[in-house]
Protein backbone atom coordinates (compact mmCIF):
# COMPACT_ATOMS: atom_id res chain seq x y z
CA UNK A 1 0.00 0.00 0.00
CA UNK A 2 2.80 2.35 0.92
CA UNK A 3 4.66 1.72 -2.31
CA UNK A 4 1.44 2.23 -4.24
CA UNK A 5 0.88 5.66 -2.65
CA UNK A 6 4.43 6.93 -2.82
CA UNK A 7 5.62 5.14 -5.90
CA UNK A 8 8.54 3.47 -4.13
CA UNK A 9 9.21 0.78 -1.61
CA UNK A 10 10.42 1.91 1.80
CA UNK A 11 14.16 1.34 1.98
CA UNK A 12 13.98 -0.08 5.49
CA UNK A 13 11.79 -2.91 4.18
CA UNK A 14 14.27 -3.79 1.46
CA UNK A 15 17.05 -3.70 4.05
CA UNK A 16 15.19 -6.14 6.27
CA UNK A 17 14.25 -8.52 3.48
CA UNK A 18 17.77 -8.55 2.08
CA UNK A 19 19.28 -9.09 5.51
CA UNK A 20 16.91 -11.98 6.25
CA UNK A 21 18.25 -13.88 3.25
CA UNK A 22 21.88 -12.93 3.77
CA UNK A 23 21.83 -13.96 7.43
CA UNK A 24 20.34 -17.38 6.67
CA UNK A 25 23.19 -18.13 4.30
CA UNK A 26 25.84 -16.60 6.61
CA UNK A 27 24.63 -18.67 9.54
CA UNK A 28 24.35 -21.98 7.72
CA UNK A 29 27.28 -21.54 5.38
CA UNK A 30 24.98 -22.78 2.62
CA UNK A 31 24.73 -20.79 -0.61
CA UNK A 32 21.44 -20.53 -2.56
CA UNK A 33 22.97 -22.79 -5.23
CA UNK A 34 23.90 -25.43 -2.65
CA UNK A 35 20.40 -25.29 -1.23
CA UNK A 36 18.98 -25.93 -4.73
CA UNK A 37 21.21 -28.95 -5.20
CA UNK A 38 20.23 -30.22 -1.75
CA UNK A 39 16.57 -29.94 -2.81
CA UNK A 40 17.19 -31.91 -5.99
CA UNK A 41 18.97 -34.66 -4.06
CA UNK A 42 16.18 -34.85 -1.49
CA UNK A 43 13.51 -35.07 -4.17
CA UNK A 44 15.44 -37.77 -6.01
CA UNK A 45 15.93 -39.81 -2.84
CA UNK A 46 12.33 -39.56 -1.71
CA UNK A 47 11.05 -40.35 -5.21
CA UNK A 48 12.86 -43.71 -5.06
CA UNK A 49 10.59 -44.72 -2.18
CA UNK A 50 7.34 -42.84 -2.61
CA UNK A 51 5.54 -41.27 -5.52
CA UNK A 52 5.74 -37.46 -5.23
CA UNK A 53 5.18 -34.51 -7.51
CA UNK A 54 8.57 -32.69 -7.61
CA UNK A 55 6.92 -29.38 -8.53
CA UNK A 56 4.84 -29.27 -5.34
CA UNK A 57 7.77 -29.91 -2.99
CA UNK A 58 8.77 -26.93 -0.83
CA UNK A 59 12.10 -26.99 0.98
CA UNK A 60 13.22 -23.81 2.69
CA UNK A 61 15.32 -22.40 5.49
CA UNK A 62 13.33 -20.98 8.36
CA UNK A 63 14.54 -18.88 11.26
CA UNK A 64 13.46 -19.71 14.79
CA UNK A 65 15.19 -17.30 17.13
CA UNK A 66 18.88 -17.87 16.43
CA UNK A 67 18.25 -21.44 15.23
CA UNK A 68 18.06 -22.23 11.56
CA UNK A 69 15.74 -24.95 10.41
CA UNK A 70 15.39 -26.78 7.12
CA UNK A 71 11.66 -27.10 6.56
CA UNK A 72 10.38 -29.51 3.94
CA UNK A 73 6.78 -29.78 2.82
CA UNK A 74 6.40 -32.81 0.57
CA UNK A 75 2.86 -33.69 -0.54
CA UNK A 76 2.48 -37.38 -1.35
CA UNK A 77 0.71 -38.50 -4.51
CA UNK A 78 -0.35 -41.86 -3.08
CA UNK A 79 -2.56 -40.21 -0.49
CA UNK A 80 -4.73 -38.51 -3.10
CA UNK A 81 -4.92 -41.67 -5.19
CA UNK A 82 -6.16 -43.68 -2.24
CA UNK A 83 -8.85 -41.10 -1.57
CA UNK A 84 -9.97 -41.30 -5.20
CA UNK A 85 -10.56 -45.01 -5.00
Amino acid at each position, binding site marked *: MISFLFGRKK*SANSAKERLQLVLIH*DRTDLSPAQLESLKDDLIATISRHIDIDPTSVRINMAQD*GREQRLVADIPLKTATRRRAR
Partner: protein
Amino acid sequence: MTAKVITIASGKGGVGKTTSVANIAVALATRGQKVTCIDGDIGLRNLDVVLGLENRIVYDLVDVIEGRCRLRQAMIRDKRLSDLYLIPAAQTRDKTAVSPSDMVRLCDELRPEVDWIIIDSPAGIERGFKNAIAAADRVLVMTNPEVSAVRDADRVIGLLEAEGKGPAALIINRLNPAMVRRGDMLSVEDVLDLLAIDLIGIVPEDENVVVASNKGMPLALDGKNKAGQAFQNIARRLMGEKVPFLDLETQNVFQRLLWRK
Protein backbone atom coordinates in the same frame (compact mmCIF):
# COMPACT_ATOMS: atom_id res chain seq x y z
CA MET B 1 35.17 -6.65 45.21
CA THR B 2 34.99 -9.06 42.33
CA ALA B 3 34.73 -7.23 39.09
CA LYS B 4 32.41 -8.20 36.28
CA VAL B 5 34.24 -8.15 32.96
CA ILE B 6 32.20 -6.67 30.12
CA THR B 7 33.49 -6.56 26.54
CA ILE B 8 31.96 -4.42 23.81
CA ALA B 9 32.36 -5.86 20.31
CA SER B 10 30.79 -5.23 16.91
CA GLY B 11 32.65 -6.87 14.06
CA LYS B 12 32.31 -3.76 11.91
CA GLY B 13 34.42 -0.70 12.69
CA GLY B 14 33.01 2.76 13.25
CA VAL B 15 29.73 1.77 14.89
CA GLY B 16 30.62 3.52 18.14
CA LYS B 17 32.33 0.94 20.36
CA THR B 18 34.94 3.26 21.84
CA THR B 19 32.42 6.02 22.54
CA SER B 20 30.17 3.49 24.25
CA VAL B 21 32.93 2.00 26.37
CA ALA B 22 33.88 5.51 27.52
CA ASN B 23 30.31 6.47 28.28
CA ILE B 24 29.26 3.24 29.96
CA ALA B 25 32.41 3.36 32.12
CA VAL B 26 31.71 7.01 33.02
CA ALA B 27 28.05 6.24 33.74
CA LEU B 28 28.98 3.36 36.06
CA ALA B 29 31.56 5.55 37.83
CA THR B 30 29.01 8.35 38.37
CA ARG B 31 26.87 5.71 40.12
CA GLY B 32 29.52 5.03 42.72
CA GLN B 33 31.03 2.02 40.96
CA LYS B 34 34.75 1.47 40.68
CA VAL B 35 35.55 0.95 36.99
CA THR B 36 38.62 0.20 34.90
CA CYS B 37 38.34 0.32 31.16
CA ILE B 38 40.86 -1.39 28.93
CA ASP B 39 41.58 -0.33 25.36
CA GLY B 40 41.94 -3.61 23.45
CA ASP B 41 42.73 -1.96 20.13
CA ILE B 42 46.50 -2.32 20.11
CA GLY B 43 48.18 -0.15 17.50
CA LEU B 44 45.04 1.98 17.04
CA ARG B 45 44.42 3.34 20.51
CA ASN B 46 41.58 5.81 20.91
CA LEU B 47 39.86 5.29 24.22
CA ASP B 48 42.42 7.65 25.79
CA VAL B 49 41.42 10.61 23.58
CA VAL B 50 37.70 9.96 23.88
CA LEU B 51 38.11 10.00 27.68
CA GLY B 52 40.44 13.03 27.53
CA LEU B 53 43.29 11.16 29.22
CA GLU B 54 45.78 11.09 26.34
CA ASN B 55 48.33 13.36 28.02
CA ARG B 56 48.73 11.21 31.07
CA ILE B 57 49.85 7.92 29.57
CA VAL B 58 53.12 6.55 30.89
CA TYR B 59 52.65 2.80 30.66
CA ASP B 60 50.24 0.73 28.56
CA LEU B 61 48.61 -2.71 28.37
CA VAL B 62 51.59 -4.33 26.65
CA ASP B 63 53.98 -2.89 29.26
CA VAL B 64 51.95 -4.70 31.94
CA ILE B 65 51.83 -7.95 30.01
CA GLU B 66 55.55 -7.90 29.24
CA GLY B 67 56.41 -7.05 32.85
CA ARG B 68 57.84 -3.56 32.36
CA CYS B 69 55.49 -2.12 34.97
CA ARG B 70 53.03 -3.21 37.60
CA LEU B 71 49.30 -3.25 36.78
CA ARG B 72 48.68 -0.28 39.12
CA GLN B 73 51.22 1.86 37.26
CA ALA B 74 49.39 1.44 33.93
CA MET B 75 46.03 2.44 35.42
CA ILE B 76 45.39 6.12 34.67
CA ARG B 77 42.99 7.69 37.10
CA ASP B 78 40.36 10.00 35.61
CA LYS B 79 40.54 13.64 36.74
CA ARG B 80 36.77 14.05 37.08
CA LEU B 81 35.77 10.69 38.52
CA SER B 82 38.16 9.27 41.07
CA ASP B 83 36.73 5.75 40.67
CA LEU B 84 37.39 5.58 36.92
CA TYR B 85 40.64 4.19 35.49
CA LEU B 86 41.95 3.53 32.00
CA ILE B 87 44.53 1.00 30.89
CA PRO B 88 45.52 2.32 27.46
CA ALA B 89 46.49 0.21 24.45
CA ALA B 90 50.05 0.23 23.16
CA GLN B 91 50.31 2.41 20.07
CA THR B 92 53.54 1.10 18.54
CA ARG B 93 52.78 -2.62 18.75
CA ASP B 94 50.23 -4.94 17.14
CA LYS B 95 47.61 -7.47 18.27
CA THR B 96 50.12 -10.32 18.47
CA ALA B 97 51.79 -8.65 21.48
CA VAL B 98 48.83 -9.90 23.56
CA SER B 99 47.29 -13.36 23.82
CA PRO B 100 43.86 -14.40 25.15
CA SER B 101 45.51 -16.00 28.20
CA ASP B 102 47.39 -12.73 28.92
CA MET B 103 44.02 -10.96 29.05
CA VAL B 104 42.55 -13.58 31.37
CA ARG B 105 45.56 -13.29 33.72
CA LEU B 106 45.46 -9.49 33.72
CA CYS B 107 41.72 -9.35 34.39
CA ASP B 108 42.04 -11.94 37.18
CA GLU B 109 44.65 -9.72 38.83
CA LEU B 110 42.39 -6.71 38.45
CA ARG B 111 39.11 -8.34 39.53
CA PRO B 112 39.55 -7.94 43.31
CA GLU B 113 40.35 -4.21 42.89
CA VAL B 114 37.26 -2.93 41.04
CA ASP B 115 33.54 -3.51 40.41
CA TRP B 116 33.69 -3.41 36.62
CA ILE B 117 36.25 -4.03 33.90
CA ILE B 118 35.03 -2.71 30.54
CA ILE B 119 37.03 -3.85 27.51
CA ASP B 120 36.93 -2.08 24.15
CA SER B 121 37.32 -4.70 21.41
CA PRO B 122 38.92 -3.76 18.10
CA ALA B 123 36.87 -4.21 14.89
CA GLY B 124 37.21 -7.54 13.14
CA ILE B 125 36.90 -11.12 14.34
CA GLU B 126 40.57 -12.11 14.56
CA ARG B 127 43.20 -12.01 17.28
CA GLY B 128 42.29 -8.61 18.74
CA PHE B 129 38.65 -9.65 19.10
CA LYS B 130 39.62 -13.02 20.61
CA ASN B 131 41.88 -11.22 23.12
CA ALA B 132 39.09 -8.81 24.03
CA ILE B 133 36.49 -11.52 24.74
CA ALA B 134 38.82 -14.04 26.44
CA ALA B 135 38.17 -12.74 29.96
CA ALA B 136 34.63 -11.47 29.41
CA ASP B 137 31.80 -12.52 31.70
CA ARG B 138 29.38 -10.80 29.38
CA VAL B 139 29.71 -9.41 25.86
CA LEU B 140 27.67 -6.48 24.56
CA VAL B 141 27.40 -6.47 20.79
CA MET B 142 27.02 -3.09 19.21
CA THR B 143 25.39 -2.35 15.88
CA ASN B 144 23.90 0.51 13.87
CA PRO B 145 20.50 0.15 12.15
CA GLU B 146 22.23 -0.39 8.83
CA VAL B 147 22.76 -3.51 6.68
CA SER B 148 26.51 -4.01 6.95
CA ALA B 149 26.63 -3.35 10.71
CA VAL B 150 23.72 -5.75 11.36
CA ARG B 151 25.28 -8.46 9.22
CA ASP B 152 28.63 -8.17 11.02
CA ALA B 153 26.91 -8.12 14.41
CA ASP B 154 25.22 -11.40 13.48
CA ARG B 155 28.61 -12.95 12.68
CA VAL B 156 29.99 -11.80 16.02
CA ILE B 157 26.94 -13.13 17.90
CA GLY B 158 27.41 -16.51 16.19
CA LEU B 159 31.13 -16.58 17.06
CA LEU B 160 30.39 -15.70 20.68
CA GLU B 161 27.93 -18.60 20.89
CA ALA B 162 30.52 -20.93 19.40
CA GLU B 163 33.11 -19.76 21.95
CA GLY B 164 30.71 -20.29 24.85
CA LYS B 165 30.55 -16.53 25.50
CA GLY B 166 26.85 -16.14 24.71
CA PRO B 167 24.19 -15.05 25.04
CA ALA B 168 25.30 -11.56 24.08
CA ALA B 169 23.19 -8.46 24.67
CA LEU B 170 22.63 -5.89 21.95
CA ILE B 171 23.21 -2.13 21.86
CA ILE B 172 21.69 -0.35 18.87
CA ASN B 173 23.63 2.87 18.34
CA ARG B 174 22.92 5.89 16.13
CA LEU B 175 19.22 5.31 15.75
CA ASN B 176 17.58 8.19 13.93
CA PRO B 177 13.88 8.20 14.97
CA ALA B 178 12.81 10.52 12.13
CA MET B 179 14.34 8.20 9.52
CA VAL B 180 12.72 5.18 11.16
CA ARG B 181 9.37 6.98 11.03
CA ARG B 182 9.61 7.61 7.33
CA GLY B 183 10.64 4.01 6.69
CA ASP B 184 14.20 4.78 5.69
CA MET B 185 15.94 3.15 8.62
CA LEU B 186 15.63 -0.30 10.20
CA SER B 187 13.64 0.02 13.41
CA VAL B 188 14.63 -1.44 16.77
CA GLU B 189 12.08 -4.22 16.20
CA ASP B 190 13.48 -4.99 12.74
CA VAL B 191 17.00 -5.35 14.15
CA LEU B 192 15.79 -7.51 17.04
CA ASP B 193 13.80 -9.73 14.64
CA LEU B 194 16.92 -10.24 12.55
CA LEU B 195 19.47 -10.79 15.31
CA ALA B 196 17.18 -12.52 17.84
CA ILE B 197 19.10 -11.53 21.00
CA ASP B 198 18.26 -9.49 24.08
CA LEU B 199 18.44 -5.72 23.93
CA ILE B 200 20.36 -3.75 26.56
CA GLY B 201 20.41 -0.28 25.04
CA ILE B 202 19.24 2.01 22.28
CA VAL B 203 21.32 5.12 21.68
CA PRO B 204 19.89 7.84 19.42
CA GLU B 205 22.02 9.59 16.85
CA ASP B 206 23.24 12.76 18.55
CA GLU B 207 25.56 15.53 17.35
CA ASN B 208 26.68 16.00 20.93
CA VAL B 209 28.67 12.76 20.63
CA VAL B 210 31.09 14.46 18.25
CA VAL B 211 31.28 17.57 20.42
CA ALA B 212 31.96 15.42 23.46
CA SER B 213 34.78 13.51 21.81
CA ASN B 214 36.25 16.80 20.51
CA LYS B 215 36.53 17.91 24.10
CA GLY B 216 37.42 14.57 25.65
CA MET B 217 34.38 14.92 27.92
CA PRO B 218 32.10 11.85 27.62
CA LEU B 219 28.40 12.71 27.31
CA ALA B 220 27.35 10.55 30.22
CA LEU B 221 29.07 13.04 32.57
CA ASP B 222 25.93 15.15 32.35
CA GLY B 223 22.72 13.26 31.77
CA LYS B 224 20.90 16.10 29.99
CA ASN B 225 21.22 14.93 26.39
CA LYS B 226 19.42 11.86 25.02
CA ALA B 227 22.55 9.89 24.11
CA GLY B 228 24.08 10.51 27.55
CA GLN B 229 20.84 9.35 29.14
CA ALA B 230 20.82 6.24 26.99
CA PHE B 231 24.32 5.33 28.22
CA GLN B 232 23.30 6.01 31.81
CA ASN B 233 20.39 3.62 31.27
CA ILE B 234 22.70 0.91 29.92
CA ALA B 235 24.84 1.28 33.08
CA ARG B 236 21.75 0.92 35.25
CA ARG B 237 20.65 -2.19 33.36
CA LEU B 238 24.13 -3.69 33.77
CA MET B 239 23.74 -3.07 37.51
CA GLY B 240 20.55 -5.11 37.44
CA GLU B 241 17.96 -2.33 37.43
CA LYS B 242 14.88 -2.63 35.24
CA VAL B 243 14.88 0.59 33.21
CA PRO B 244 12.32 1.27 30.48
CA PHE B 245 13.76 2.21 27.11
CA LEU B 246 13.75 5.95 26.22
CA ASP B 247 10.70 7.53 24.60
CA LEU B 248 12.27 7.98 21.17
CA GLU B 249 12.66 4.25 21.08
CA THR B 250 8.95 3.60 20.84
CA GLN B 251 8.21 6.20 18.19
CA ASN B 252 7.59 3.56 15.57
CA VAL B 253 4.41 2.60 17.44
CA PHE B 254 2.83 5.53 15.64
CA GLN B 255 4.14 4.26 12.36
CA ARG B 256 2.84 0.77 13.06
CA LEU B 257 -0.65 2.04 13.87
CA LEU B 258 -0.72 4.14 10.75
CA TRP B 259 0.49 1.56 8.30
CA ARG B 260 -0.95 -1.62 9.75
CA LYS B 261 -2.97 -3.32 7.05
